[in-house]
């Protein structure tokens, strides 16, 4: 029996009908290039401006501080490379953490290759970075601190506001990747004490291929690409008007539903954890019990291969995600769970379940009814065949 249950909302979310309708209208009725001077172009500009204003309201900034990008990966790259490259290599220092998204970690690695100094701070067993460790890592040449708001693998909520405050005490810029928090947490650039913030459309029931970077007025960022005046030359190229409209619609939709969904999903998360503990002896929940987003659960089942569990669940029509990734050379353990100090066996047996607005208790009941069978089967295979 195929259940068709999607529990991988951290990977991506379905486009909400209200977003689709807004985008369809933009596609059908406003195809003009915003750079054109005629009326079709002006209508497109109006849509982009309106979307920019809505995006700004959703995170508590001014419209002029929003720069649309192709997604959060580009926004993260733009934030880190664009800020750091304002200084010469060898004269600027970046602080980030070991559990950031690869969009941050790989950008930081690129900066290191270019000669910039980078400090990647460790996290504790819950995935939390210690603000005191951030304070101690600050140097005279520290330019930027980047700490994600919500971890995409464990749901850990980092103390961004506290770190932002100490960054500002020292005249250092603060960036956060808010992608996984935006759909459920109250995100305000003022409250979070951030100067730059990355967001993505497809994690909040919007389309793929659109995101944005908030850049506080007065902060200088060097562009990564060249060729036009769009987005005030920081992100040149003809605007993705339907995507931008979709992003604004998604922000509007999530903004309207955040408070109720936050409490509903938090209850469902507790329900799921309780169900897992009741049905699977020894199940381990990876990540913190508190200071955690309401929609992410990472767990490991001792002795049970994570990939095999995922494939068995997938064959039953249930979509979850893995804590480790296998590539052509080896199994790569999750860098997040590794940084949290989890043993490799536990990491290889980890699965991530992420809940979304469409998730129902009935779906979780079906998931919980199937998981013990899957665990039992994988265990039986592991125990019955020689290693």
């Amino acid at each position, binding site marked *: 029996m195929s259940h068709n249950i999607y529990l991988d909302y951290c990977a991506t979310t379905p486009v909400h009908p209200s977003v689709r309708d807004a985008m369809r209208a933009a596609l059908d009725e406003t195809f003009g290039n915003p750079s054109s001077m005629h009326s079709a172009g002006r209508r497109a500009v109006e849509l982009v401006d309106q979307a920019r204003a809505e995006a700004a309201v959703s995170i508590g900034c001014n419209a002029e501080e929003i720069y649309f990008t192709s997604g959060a990966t580009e926004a993260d790259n733009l934030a880190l490379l664009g800020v750091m490259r304002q200084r010469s290599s060898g004269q600027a220092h970046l602080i980030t953490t070991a559990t950031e998204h690869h969009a941050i970690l790989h950008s930081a690695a690129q900066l290191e290759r270019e000669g910039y100094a980078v400090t990647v701070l460790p996290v504790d067993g819950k995935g939390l970075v210690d603000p005191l460790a951030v304070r101690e890592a600050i140097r005279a040449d520290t330019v930027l601190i980047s700490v994600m708001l919500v971890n995409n693998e464990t749901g850990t909520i980092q103390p961004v506001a506290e770190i932002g405050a100490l960054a500002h005490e020292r005249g250092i810029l603060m960036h956060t990747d808010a992608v996984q928090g935006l759909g459920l947490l109250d995100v305000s650039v003022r409250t979070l004490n951030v100067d730059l913030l990355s967001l993505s459309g497809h994690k909040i029931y919007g389309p793929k291929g659109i995101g944005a970077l908030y850049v506080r007025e007065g902060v200088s960022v060097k562009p990564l690409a060249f060729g036009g005046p769009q987005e005030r030359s920081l992100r040149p190229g003809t605007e993705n008007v339907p995507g931008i409209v979709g992003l604004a619609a998604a922000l509007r939709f999530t903004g309207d539903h955040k408070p109720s969904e936050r409490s509903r999903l938090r209850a469902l998360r507790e329900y799921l954890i309780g169900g897992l503990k009741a049905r699977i002896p020894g199940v381990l929940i990876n990540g913190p019990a508190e200071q955690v987003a309401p929609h992410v659960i990472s767990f490991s089942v001792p002795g049970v*291969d994570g990939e095999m569990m995922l494939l068995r669940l997938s064959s039953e029509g249930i979509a979850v995600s893995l804590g480790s990734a296998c590539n*052509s050379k*080896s199994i790569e353990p999750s860098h997040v769970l590794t940084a949290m100090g989890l043993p490799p066996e536990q990491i290889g047996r980890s699965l991530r379940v992420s809940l979304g607005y469409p998730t129902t208790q009935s779906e979780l009941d079906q998931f919980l009814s199937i998981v013990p069978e899957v665990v039992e089967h994988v265990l039986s*295979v592991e125990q*019955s*065949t*020689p290693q």
Partner: protein
Amino acid sequence: MEKYRICVIGGWCGNRMVMVAEHLQDLLKDKGTPCRVITHSVWESYTRPPASDLVLQLLPAFTENEIGCPVINIKPLLADLDHPATINKVLQHVQASYPV
């Protein structure tokens, strides 16, 4: 054509599964026990593998009862193609059951 059929089962690591299969095929030929080594990805299709004399699993997909032939877990080959204990286990099994 080789009469002894081996199926290597893999998951998402499709490239690695092919590399393991090719490596084992070369190794078994060098040892004088040439085999027909095929692959079966349960990530692409969660179905039972083709009829085989021996199934080698990179992940714990099936029991011997389910597929009706001997099964050896070869997960260590994901990280090390020449993992000695795992290679020995495969060679011993093939040599003991190879048709003469």
